[in-house]
Every structure is written in C-alpha cells, then in structure tokens.
C-alpha cells in the first residue's frame, strides 16, 4: 500500500466544518476563522504555518496543495496575504482554504516546499511578483521575470510604463472614444521604465551564471583517467524545435545521462494577471482564451464558473447553456489530446506525419467552433450566466477539406456525423497506427517515471496525475455543470511513464466521445430554450468576497482565484495554471534519463506556454 493510500485511511474527521473546528482547537492561538464577508477558510499565524501544514497533510488527509498565491491588500488592511487551497486526493471534496498574512515592508512567510513539494514554483512566483520571501525555500529566485528586474509588478502600487488608470474602462477612451498610441507618451517610444538617473555607462547586467546553483558552466572532466566522462551544461531553448514554445531547460549532463534539469520560464510572461486586475469582469473572458490557446472553450468555462460562484446565486445558468458548455468542453478535450499526441510523436522523431493526421481531425472541430463562436481558436464564447449565442442552424465553411466546395450543412447533422463517426474513427486510427509501434514502445515504456505519491506531492494534475494511477478527476471529485448526470469513467493507467500518458489520452478521448453521445439527445430536447441567465450589460458588479473556481481542463486543474471588492473589476485575479504546476516534477522525472528522452518527457506532460507563463 502506497503512502498516499494510507494518508487516505487516516483522517480523523472527514467533513470540512468539523475539520476546521478540530484544527482551531488544536491551534487555539494560531488558527482563526476568516470572518471577512464573502471569505472562507482560516487564517493561520505565519510562524505556525509549517506545523499546521504538517498536521493537515498527515492527520487530516489534505495531501494535495493545489494552489498557492498571494494578494496585496493595499488600502484594505495594508498587508500581503498568501492563500493556500489544499485538497484530498483522490477522494475529492471541497478544498481546505488557509491563509497567512505578512506586512508589506518586510514580507516573510515560512516555505512549505518541504511539506508540499508542489509549492516550489508557486512560491517562487509569489516571490517574483509580490516580493514575499519564503523562508526555507531551497531555490528562491525569480521565475517569470529576470534577476535584476526593478520591482514586484503584481503589487498594487506598481505602475507599469503604459499605466493609465487603476481600472478600465479608461476615462480617456470612454465614452468619448479617443484613442492614442501609448508609445507616444514614453520618452523612449518603448514600453520601458527606468529608475531615476539610470544610464548605460558603467552598467553591468547581472549575469545568469550567478544564479545557476550547483551547475558549473562549461565542461568538467570526471571519472577515473582510463574512462573519463564530461559533465556538460546544455541549454535547451528558448528557441528549440522541441520545447513546445518558448520554454527553456538547463540540463547538466554526465555523458548522455541527465544529472539535473532546471526549467527556465517566463519567455511568454505577458502579464495576464496584472492586466486582468485592470479589466472588467467580462473583459477578462477573451483573455482566458489566450491562456491555454488550444483549449480556449474550456478556459472560458472555468472562468465563468468562478465568477458565477462569486455572484452567489444572482445568476443562474439555464440547462441548455450547461449542455452546450459541456459539448464545447469535451470537444476541446479531444482537440487538445489529438494535438498533444501528434506533437508527442514529433518529439519522438516521427516528424509531423502523425501530427498531420491529428491536425486534420482537429480542423473539423474548429469548423464547428468557428460557425458557433465566430473564431477558430479564440472563441470568447461563454458568458457569466450562460453562453453568448446558440448553435447556428447551419454550418457553412468555405474550405472543405477535400476540394473547394462550399460546405453548407445542418449543424445537428454535422455534429452527429462528427461525434458518431468521424471522431471515434480518428481516435481508432491513431491507436492502430501508433500504439503497438515497436519504436514508440521502446522509447516510452518505463521512461519519465512519476510514481503516484510523487505526482500528488508535486501537485500534478490532469492526465499526468491519472497516468500515475491516481483516479482523481474534478468532474467527479468536485462536480460542476451537468457532469453528475453524465456517464463516464475516470480513466487511469498504473505505471506513470510516457507510454501510459499517451494511452491515457486515447482513453480520455474515448470517454469524451461517450459523453458527447449523451449530449446529442440533450441538445435536441432543449432546442430553442434560453441560453443565458445572467445580466445583459456591458459590465457587471460582483459582490465583495473571494472564490476559487476550478475545472478539469484537458491539461489538468485550471483554477481561478478571484477577489472582489464589490466593484466592476477584480481586485485579485489569479490563474492556477496546470501547465505551470505540472512542470514542477519535470526535473525529478528527467533525472537519470538520457538527454534524448528529456524532450519526450516534456512532450508527455503536455504544456502550453501561454498558460505556463501567463
């Protein structure tokens, strides 16, 4: 019996309120309820935080630290707050929310990396963006920005070069509609801001080498004189054909074997959260498209769920809207898994042939998205309280796949063909062509191992977690939308290697088709019913409070942690990105493997940089 299973057997009390009561009894001075209106969970004295974490993990079974983030309450108590969401995996249920506060001048919070290794990157992010020092963190340095960057940009008093006003819509644009180019208002004509008196004379930038802990640059000769090997530091990326975008890895090699690997990211850090806090609540919807840009529909859904939760019953989602949402989310899952399998094969050396098959099938789904939402990729389709438009009666598309004939077809018929015939056939086709391939098996089986306990400890989610044998799927563990009434299995695979992750994605696509087949009759039954139960206005006000909304995205748990002060803009808008957190165990998974496998291991995790770096 593995560790995490015994964790599950242990918990003293299982329901959340009695757990919290027991914890308050256990730590009478250090734990108190968070009584602010609209808030949940407990506030823990920073000094007692590690002990608290050890207790909830070891005795109460909260073995999975899903999300860790910070909030700057400038002007609302003037403190920084670190917010944790811990779950029980695989049994599921609501998260235990706990928070620790620290002052803004000299913020220090004990690190939880030794208890929850999954906190590693997330603490580094909070350090980078908020300047919070996590005492005891083994490798606390900037993660999204570079060493030497001036300031901690997510703090409320940080103003970027193009800063105009705290929140949108800006007075200069609304309602008069005056538009100008921000560059013209910067002395350099660029998006830059320097400290007072800064010049390039005598300036020496901080060298990267200073931050490569324990990695010597250059070549070391090791071993006995008769059989010597080189230790070599190899830099993969950010421009590298196999890194799935602008991702970088520093790999220390002993011969061909990986000794250590450190991911370096932030090359696509486009300040999603800072911009999100200036945007209106609706204004963020199109930005969520650009997080995991392969799965925009699913991102929309997770964000809509979060804000609906914050509206506390003021909006209700009509049944037909839920049906359409699940339709979109499951089609998206298939798009994502097709893409990811295609590109995993690229990484294994089958350059683009399997990917072309996968992309071709994806186009059929994109045609449907385009006909419905108006865009192939950036759908911006869901709204707080439903979806913005019903399915079109007919699908028209100019470029049919075979020739230049214009396709004009009944939408339901198109969907039926797609779901009953085309998709299952494509999945089977991939399966037949690839699964038994000698090369794939010998390159994938037993490579990039992630045991179940480690997957949970590192907060891995989605296919990465399930391929390690952990039956945890948010659609079942914390159901949302109409998933409770749908029949599907939570797929798992036992071994936690690349091959299992590949197979698991095939399994999941089949389950998605199974769900879609149940969606079709529901679509027909609900035809003509309302699709939107929210407020039809350009902007909404959200009651003060916080919420953590999360959904099972194709890549894992996509969560949004939002705080509202009661206005038309989020005070805090945080994205718990599965691609980012799933990278935490990458270094461990690659240790001892051959350098050629690193690329395949990365491919099997399936990341998208838009979401990793945000």
């Amino acid at each position, binding site marked *: 019996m593995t560790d995490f299973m015994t964790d599950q057997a242990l918990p003293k009390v299982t329901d959340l309120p009695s757990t919290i009561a027991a914890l308050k009894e256990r730590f009478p001075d250090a734990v108190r309820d968070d009584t602010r209106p609209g808030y949940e969970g407990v506030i823990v004295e920073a000094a007692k935080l590690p002990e608290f974490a050890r207790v909830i993990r070891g005795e109460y079974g909260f073995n999975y630290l899903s999300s860790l983030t910070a909030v700057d309450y400038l002007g609302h108590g003037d403190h920084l707050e670190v917010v944790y969401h811990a779950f029980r995996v695989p049994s599921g249920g609501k998260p235990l929310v706990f928070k620790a506060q620290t002052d803004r001048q000299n913020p220090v919070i004990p690190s939880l990396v030794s208890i929850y290794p999954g906190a590693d990157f997330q603490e580094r992010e909070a350090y980078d963006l908020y300047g919070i020092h996590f005492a005891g963190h083994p490798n606390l340095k900037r993660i999204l920005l570079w060493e030497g960057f001036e300031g901690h940009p997510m703090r409320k008093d940080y103003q*970027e070069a*193009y800063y105009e006003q705290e929140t949108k819509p800006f007075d200069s644009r609304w309602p008069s509609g005056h538009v100008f180019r921000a560059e013209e208002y910067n*002395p*350099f004509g*660029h*998006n830059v*801001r320097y400290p*007072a008196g800064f010049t*390039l004379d005598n300036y020496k930038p901080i060298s990267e080498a200073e931050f490569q802990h324990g990695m010597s640059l250059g070549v070391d000769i090791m071993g006995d004189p008769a059989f010597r090997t080189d230790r070599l530091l190899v830099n993969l990326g950010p421009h590298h054909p196999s890194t799935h975008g602008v991702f970088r890895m520093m790999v220390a090699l002993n011969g061909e074997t990986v000794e250590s690997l450190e991911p370096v990211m932030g090359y*696509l850090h486009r300040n999603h959260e800072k911009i999100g806090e200036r945007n209106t609540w609706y204004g963020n919807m199109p930005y969520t498209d650009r997080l995991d840009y392969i799965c925009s529909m699913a991102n929309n859904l997770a964000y809509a769920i979060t804000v609906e939760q914050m509206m506390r019953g003021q909006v209700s989602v009509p049944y037909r809207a839920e049906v359409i949402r699940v339709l979109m989310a499951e089609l998206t899952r298939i798009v994502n898994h097709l893409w990811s399998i295609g590109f995993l094969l690229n990484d294994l050396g089958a350059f683009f042939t399997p990917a072309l098959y996968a992309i071709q099938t994806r186009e059929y789904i994109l045609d449907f998205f385009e006909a419905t939402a108006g865009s192939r990729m950036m759908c911006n389709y869901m709204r707080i309280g439903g979806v913005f438009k019903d399915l079109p009666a007919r699908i028209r598309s100019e470029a049919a796949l075979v020739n230049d004939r214009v396709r004009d077809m009944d939408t339901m018929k198109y969907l039926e063909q797609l779901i009953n015939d085309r998709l299952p056939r494509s999945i089977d086709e991939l399966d037949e062509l690839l699964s038994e391939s000698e090369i794939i098996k010998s390159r994938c089986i037993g490579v990039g191992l992630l045991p179940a306990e480690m997957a949970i400890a590192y907060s891995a989610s989605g296919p990465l977690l399930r391929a390690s044998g952990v039956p945890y799927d948010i659609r079942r563990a914390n159901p949302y939308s109409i998933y409770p009434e749908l029949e599907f299995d939570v797929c798992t695979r036992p071994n936690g290697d690349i091959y299992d992750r590949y197979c698991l994605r095939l399994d999941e696509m089949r389950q998605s088709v199974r769900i879609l087949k149940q969606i079709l009759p529901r679509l027909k039954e609900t035809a003509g019913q309302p699709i939107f139960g929210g407020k039809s206005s350009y902007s909404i006000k959200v009651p003060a409070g916080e919420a953590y909304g999360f959904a099972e995205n194709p890549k894992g748990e996509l969560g949004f942690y939002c705080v509202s002060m009661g206005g038309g803009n989020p005070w805090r808008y945080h994205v718990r990105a599965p691609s980012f957190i799933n990278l935490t165990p990458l270094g461990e998974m690659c240790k001892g493997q051959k350098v050629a496998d690193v690329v395949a291991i990365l491919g099997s995790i399936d990341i998208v940089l838009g979401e990793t770096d945000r």
Partner: protein
Amino acid sequence: MNNSGIDLRQLQHPDIPVPEEMQSNVAVTSLSSLYNWARSRSIWPMLFGLACCAIEMIATAASRFDLARFGMEVMRASPRQADLMIVSGTVTKKMVVPIVRLYNQMPEPKYVLAMGACASGGGPFKEGYNVVSGIDKYIPVDVYVPGCPPTPQALLYGLIALQKKIEKQSLGVSASVPWYGGGPSEEIPVPILGPDIIDPRHAEVLRKEAQRNRVTPTVAQSLAERTLSQGA
C-alpha cells in the same frame, strides 16, 4: 503551360515578344526576375513559434491549408538555414533578446513577417510590463499580418504579399537587397535585460533622461504633463 507545371508566361518580359505558339516553352526574361521568381517560391521559414499565433502557423503548414503549395514547407529550426522569420506571437522583453540574436544569425537576404496583433504592435497584452510593443521596435519588418490570431488564409495572404515584394527587388548595383548590394549587412544590437529591457541604441536618450533625475514617467503622468503644458 508545359509539362513541368510551371507557367512561363509569368516570367515573360513584356517588351520582348515571343511567338504565341512558343510561349509555353520559351520565355525571355531578365536575370533578376528569373532569380527572384525562384527565390520567392522557395522561402524557408524558421521553425519558430512564440504564442497562440504559432498554432495557426502550424495549422497553415498542415494538410488543409498546405504551405507546401508555396514552396515554404521546409521549416528550418536553425536560423542559419532560414530566409524568413515569422514572428508568430507576443514578443516579451525576456524573449526579444534571443529573437534579435536569431535575427542576426540569419543569412541575408532575410525577411521578417509579423504575424498577428502582438507581433505587429503589442496586441491585447500591449500594456503589460513585460511586453514589447511590436517586434518592429527592434528588427525591420517586411509584412504585417493583422488578426488575433490571423486565420491561416490571412497568413497565406501575407506570405503571397512577401513573394510579391521579393519579385520587385533588384539585384543590380543599386540593389535593394543588402546582400547583393555588396556592403556588409549591419547587426542589430542585442537588447540588455537590466532594470527593464534596454535597447543599446538608446544610450544617448538614457543619458539625457538621467539628467532629469526622475523615474521614467508612466503614460498617465505624461498625459497629465501635456495637458498642463497645453493649458499654460
């Protein structure tokens, strides 16, 4: 059209008549147009994706939209083998350093296509503290393709526009292509990651600004200043 599938009439010099019946087999043309014709139809793009737009670029290269029809399917991962850099996505300050380096490593004649709103001018993330307001702030751009993301059709249109541009370039003494003009092509100074991104070409402006001894003003501050000075 002859049996090689090439339409020679495209190349035909307008002032030199060729008898009608021979037009499918014979063309009289200038070296420049022959050369440009060949090179515009075998542009090798760099295999290089930045963000969401890269996904549409891959879709363009795949079977449905089939970039191979334009002789461009040979995407090279090495800048030394590429003619065209498709900047497909948001350029961040952290990423612009490697991009400028890659651009410098590409051999002349080289071209840049800015794909999407982000690469053209900053896009939806323009106001971010880590975002560059368009790649043309650092390297020269030949074709801009608007969209967020541009559809594959739009990208193809941009690539056809690039082909047209190449066809118009001359290879003579007053060459518009740096490589053929004979002079060395200039390297773009690589930006530096300091307290913010620094373009080495700004050294002079930096010195001037430093004398004013203030943090670089934000747009809000500059706006306020200008309204004040206009009012006075």
